[in-house]
């Protein structure tokens, strides 16, 4: 299953709804394109909704980190919402769970930017 991405604005925050797999190739490329596109539009407060992402490989992890760094470098923030168990486990064993801000409720994620 390839990756699909749509985004919606919630005030100054943009929520990106992702579904599918973030893996080497098209999945990672689409995530990169989406985040870079938002930054070009000066949308620097980003929440990635991963509720429908059940698979990420090392390439996808690298793209999440790359996006996180790119947003931070522009004085923005990138946070994660609704991790599936597999994705949460993956971020935990790679110690990235402590790097990203992770939320289980969208309202809490949005409030955290205030």
């Amino acid at each position, binding site marked *: 299953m390839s990756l699909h991405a749509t985004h919606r604005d919630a005030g100054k925050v943009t929520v990106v709804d992702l579904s599918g797999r973030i*893996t*080497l*190739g098209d999945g990672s490329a689409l995530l990169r394109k989406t985040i870079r596109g938002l930054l070009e539009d000066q949308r620097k407060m980003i929440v990635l909704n991963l509720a429908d992402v059940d698979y990420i*490989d*090392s*390439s996808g*992890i*690298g*793209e999440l*980190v*790359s996006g*996180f*760094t790119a947003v931070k470098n522009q004085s923005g923030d990138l*946070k994660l919402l609704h991790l599936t168990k*597999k994705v949460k*486990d*993956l971020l*935990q*064993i*790679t*110690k*990235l*769970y*402590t*790097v*990203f*801000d*992770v*939320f*289980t409720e969208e309202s*809490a994620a949005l409030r955290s930017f205030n």
Partner: protein
Amino acid sequence: MASEIKHLEMTLETQVESVNLAEEMCLRVAEAAGFGEDDCYRIGMSVREGVINAFHYGNEERPEKKIYLAVDLTAEKMIIHVLDEGVGFKLIDVPDPLAEENLLSTSGRGIFLMRAFMDEFDVVSGRTGGAEIVMSKKLPTPGSASPNGQGGQNATPQQEEQG
């Protein structure tokens, strides 16, 4: 259980599509061997990472080079070999992705994931002169396969939640 060893091998092109192909083939073998859903996930991920490693680091994405994948199914375990046509590498030279200075690196987690998800993992010098990843997972004992199958020794995360 029969002691016969089942052997399967395929030669893959150095292209992104080979990663999915290798994963799908090994998943079918793992499912047929009786692994549960979680173990199949770990095996599939490890095969992906092994072939990504061969594609990107070993063969440097050069299309004239090949990736050799082999699977042995013994009475005790599923053994996977991924061989590239690069110059090889030593595990000791691979940076630790959990080190503070590497946490925000955008690459270098594949070896770590294979080690975490499989029971045995090693890298040897292959017949091509490239690196040969050899990794295995013990077969589930009859009646033990479950959606929460056991992973490798390092697969259980032990960290506090945040956010």
